[in-house]
């Protein structure tokens, strides 16, 4: 695999993107009334803020997916983990407070939800690692169980699939901007995840566990433990994403149809594949998908009617194109395989 080629290609792409942005800015400056100017005018501080908030669950799911898959366990149950944590956060905050949670109780709900997601991921890890279940099937099961369990539990608690609304986490002042807690967590988590994967020995173990578990085993690191860590981290990050969506933004659990998570976990998977297992790339892809969605919403209001269904499939089309044609996304060699240590 040659590394020089893609990086030059990427530099080209970056240059091209910068040119496009500059051209659009020029249009906006000199021809503010043209349709292009109208569209460019959409992009302001409110737009970026809105996109960042839309990015939260997608990017967290993507970060989680990276850790699990790099360690060798493909976790396609991220959507399910988001649903579980979204539900748990609202349920816990609502139940401990009797319906009107304080900020402190909201934070309890938030962290219990993260814990619930980690426990669910642990269950998935045990099934995949100890019982050697097929990871794809087990991952689908995680999703399907969450999809049924959360609305069911809602009915038990509230007598209906939708929870009553509760308050959301307060924004706080960070330097000059008003910061949304889950957004701040995301902006910290992305570089932290990148650092952990690329600059620490834990990151190297994760990498080795997915690429060549035998070698890792040979140097005396327990592959099982590394894989457990990878999957539990996927639960942790998905938990942040789901609870961030429910408590950082919406303040309610909606259990009908595809639930309020509505496919964000799946888009997270496409985001990390598109980002080639790099947390920064995955964040970039999540941000891109979220910004397309936000753009589409605003174009509709201007009367440019792009069906939302069409925008909705962009992530999936992108990932197919990237996997099939661009081909720089390389799945870890041992991902999906069980590893049996030599020593009995």
């Amino acid at each position, binding site marked *: 695999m040659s590394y020089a080629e893609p990086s030059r290609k990427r530099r080209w792409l970056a240059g091209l993107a910068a040119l496009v942005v500059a051209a659009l800015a020029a249009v906006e400056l000199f021809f503010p009334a043209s349709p292009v100017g109208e569209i460019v005018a959409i992009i302001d501080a409110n737009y970026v803020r809105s996109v960042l908030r839309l990015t939260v669950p997608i990017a967290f799911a993507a970060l989680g997916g990276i850790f699990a898959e790099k360690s060798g366990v493909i976790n396609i149950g991220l959507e399910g983990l988001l649903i579980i944590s979204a539900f748990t956060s609202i349920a816990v905050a609502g139940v401990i407070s009797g319906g009107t949670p304080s900020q402190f109780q909201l934070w309890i709900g938030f962290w219990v939800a993260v814990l619930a997601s980690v426990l669910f991921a642990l269950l998935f890890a045990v099934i995949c690692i100890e019982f050697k279940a097929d990871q794809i099937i087990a991952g689908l099961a995680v999703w399907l169980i969450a999809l049924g369990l959360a609305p069911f539990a809602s009915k038990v608690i509230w007598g209906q699939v939708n929870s009553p609304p509760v308050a959301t986490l307060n924004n706080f002042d960070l330097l000059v901007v008003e910061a949304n807690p889950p957004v701040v967590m995301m902006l910290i988590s992305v570089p932290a995840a990148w650092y952990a994967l690329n600059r620490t020995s834990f990151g190297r173990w994760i990498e080795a566990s997915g690429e060549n578990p035998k070698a890792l085993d040979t140097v005396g690191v327990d592959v099982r433990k590394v894989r457990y860590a990878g999957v539990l981290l996927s639960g942790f990050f998905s938990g942040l994403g789901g609870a961030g969506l429910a408590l950082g933004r919406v*303040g309610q659990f909606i259990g009908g149809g595809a639930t309020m998570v509505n496919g964000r976990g799946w888009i997270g998977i496409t985001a990390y594949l598109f980002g080639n297992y790099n947390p920064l790339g995955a964040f970039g892809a999540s941000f891109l998908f979220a910004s397309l969605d936000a753009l589409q*919403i605003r174009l509709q209001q201007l009367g440019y009617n792009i069906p939302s269904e069409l925008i909705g499939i962009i992530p999936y089309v992108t990932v197919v194109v990237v996997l099939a044609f661009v081909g720089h996304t390389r799945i870890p060699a041992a991902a999906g395989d069980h590893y049996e240590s030599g020593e009995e």
Partner: protein
Amino acid sequence: MAKIDEGKRRMLKIGGAGLVGTGLAGCLGGGGGGGGETTTESGGDSTESGDGTTEETTTESEPTNVGMVYATGGLGDNSFNDMAHKGIKQAASEFDVEFKNAEPSSPGDVATLQRKFARSNNPDYDLISCIGFVQTSALKENAKRFSDQKFMVVDSVVERENVASYTFKEHQGSFQVGHLAGLLTSKKDFSAGAGQTNGDLKVGFVGGKEVPLIKKFEAGFKAGVKHANSDVTVSSAYAGAWSDPGKGQSIANSMYNKGADIVYHAAGGTGNGVFKAAQKQGRFAIGVDSDQSKSLTKYSDVILASMVKSVDEAVYRSVERTRNGNFKGGSVQSLGLEKDGVAAVYGKDLGSEIPDSVKSSLDSSREKIIAGDIEVPTKPENV
């Protein structure tokens, strides 16, 4: 240990993504969307029958048995299904009626539940109520198969001799709330509860999925706004989902940020995000289907009004008629503003703060619509 080659793994992933696409499509289908241009308007006058005079016409002493098949949201949805349930309970308390509820967990269950009621001999169901558009295709089959069984369907039309169809003129009710929004946004400094208007002449509409049924809401709303003040612009957007409040919130936020001060939603659970955004931004919203200021009390300080569809009335009426021997198979009842089939219901907290002049304007436009002096379009492009 099975060694899966890389190609196969890729296939699995892509397959997974594909499966998700179809899976989600399947899941989302049930939300209550869909619907064609239905109303053929038969017998607005025939609805007069049997007002309170049911005792005389009842000849049989046996109770009327009614099987209720709800839409996929299930009971406890604070709107559609709960309204239907309310209607059958009302009928049961007034007449000698016994009913049984069935809640399908997916659109696929609907046909089975309909059949189960139709086949039953103990009790033999006099009427099977099918609630929601989701029932349509299953009912077409079953009405043909069980041609002696009486059915009624809400929100859809099935043209068979043994099916009575009930639809709503959602555009008329939406016109009313549009009229309200147009009048209030024209007032620079109207404030009530947690919201206030701004100087901009802008309001918004958020739809769930872009289907003809929801387009009727949009069309009526736009026409109503225009009727109030033709300078007011309406921005509208569809979320593409019934259960995504996060998306509803970001759509509403973008509208409020661009100067809208009142947003009307017809988007099911997605619409809850609209209320959230209204509350955060100190603006107003308008609810749908049921009085949402009562079902979502946390947001009652921003809900000006709700466009209520009286599904309960449709269910109640069909049971009453079945008892009277007056069941009109093959007919389509289209319930409009007249007799409050649809209505703009003011929010429980904000209703009292809406100026009387606005309310009386709404009353007069309501009368004009009923009298036919105002024709409300059903397609947004005809506004």
